[in-house]
């Protein structure tokens, strides 16, 4: 589905990614874990076209998208739920969802996606006319995911969906992520600092450290890796 080769990204003189390569198979949940400043967000922002790499090549569904504009990347079926959620705070929940479907002109498909979003996050339906900025943190995360689903994605990237959310809600949100993958067949790239949880729900994992991939493998194996345990899984 997605193939990344030798990707490097720099912010001015500061290098954030130093030639990473990885592949994501269709239908999988893949996770990218790593500590603060490892380059996870940078990776996602480059994949969605917000940042331009200095070297490397990104191929999505067999076509190169390295230099494609963000809105054209969304049109191809790659959707990004950004770090910090970035919902449109002054717009209503309803308008946020409508913005998610900005490129979708098929009314039947929109209605179907909307019904699906409400089926996994009934809370959003109850709060349709509420200004999004007044939602709780967990509800905002649901809205961010719902908004991304409205674009009818084939591939969904989530940047730290557990950030700043009550533990009970984190469980719900992760269950929904698994559900989205299983029921809609949407391939998922999950970025997390919470390595425990990420390795539990994913099939394959990459570990990023200061701009390099330092470890990779099936998630169930990495869960028992002594080195990873020491660094990310709290011993």
């Amino acid at each position: 589905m997605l193939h990344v080769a030798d990707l490097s990204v720099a912010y001015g003189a500061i290098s954030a990614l130093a030639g990473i390569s990885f592949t994501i198979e269709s239908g999988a949940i893949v996770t990218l874990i790593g500590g603060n400043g490892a380059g996870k967000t940078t990776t996602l922002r480059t994949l969605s076209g917000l940042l331009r790499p200095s070297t490397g090549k990104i191929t999505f569904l067999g076509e190169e998208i390295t230099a494609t504009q963000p809105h054209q990347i969304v049109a191809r079926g790659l959707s990004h739920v950004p770090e910090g959620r970035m919902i449109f705070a002054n717009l209503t929940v309803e308008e946020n969802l409508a913005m998610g479907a900005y490129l979708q002109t098929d009314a039947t498909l929109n209605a179907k996606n909307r019904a699906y979003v409400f089926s996994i996050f009934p809370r959003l339906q109850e709060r349709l006319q509420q200004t999004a900025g007044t939602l709780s943190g967990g509800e905002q995360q649901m809205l961010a995911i719902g908004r991304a689903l409205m674009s009818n994605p084939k591939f969904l990237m989530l940047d730290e969906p557990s950030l700043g959310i009550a533990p009970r809600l984190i469980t719900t949100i992760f269950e929904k992520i698994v559900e989205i993958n299983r029921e809609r067949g949407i391939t998922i790239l999950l970025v997390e600092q919470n390595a425990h949880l990420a390795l539990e729900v994913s099939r394959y994992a990459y570990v990023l450290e200061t701009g390099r991939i330092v470890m990779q493998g099936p998630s169930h194996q990495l869960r028992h890796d002594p080195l990873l345990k020491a660094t990310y899984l709290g011993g």
Partner: protein
Amino acid sequence: MSEFLQQLLNGLSLGAIYALIALGYTMVYGVLRFINFAHSDVFMVGAYLGYYLGKLVPPGTLWGGLFVLFAAMIGCAGLGMLIERLAYRPLRGAATLNVLITAIGVSLLLEYSGQRFFGAAPRVFPPIFPERNFQLGALIISTNQLVVIGVAVLLMLGLQFIVYRTKIGTAMRAVSQNPKAAQLVGVNNDVVISFTFGLGSALAAAGGILYALNYPSIDPLMGVMPGLKAFVAAVLGGIGNIPGAALGGLILGTVETFIGGSQWSTYKDAIAFAILIIILLFRPAGLLGRFTAEKV
């Protein structure tokens, strides 16, 4: 009492013109976070387009007037989009100061091109709308005032509809709040920004013609003072806030007219700015502006 009503009517029609210009400042600020100083010169070009187009239609007819108005709005929408494309888009992502200085440059370019092509001498604006005065008790209402208020109200309702009820309007608000997130849902921000310039410039053109109708002399520097006042109105209402710009314009126009008719008339501009300073002392974000704290 009747003098009060008369002044109120004059003030509201001046205020409606300020409001139309202020909307352009505030919308562009909303999507790009900078003050488009060239906006007041688009207003001037609008008046000149009205002047030349006004010679093509028979004077004093409603349809002729509306045709001139509409054509000048389209012309200026094109000009606004062209300015954005040529002068501002190449600076996307550059420091705000660079963009501001460019805006001043574009403003000077338009003003001096105006002097070169239209001539520096003032011209009398043709009476493109029917001219009659109605007597309502002691109140005298001119058709021009009715046109100003009618057109301004219709345009503002239309704008309200576009911004709050259409897809492109929702996209404008989304880009204004979070341009990156807008890109991530598939908005082509360049298209939205271009549309915003077109919309604001069309309103400025309407403002220019309505202004010229009531103060029937136009010159290439005519935009400077109304532009400044409209900018004040936009800040007064809360820059970036659309209803705020309309409210700020109406307040400023009314206050200015009342002071202009009083013994302090020579200070009317100074007082307008003093009001701005006082309001901003108490409400730094403007009357309807809010400092939004985003949850992280």
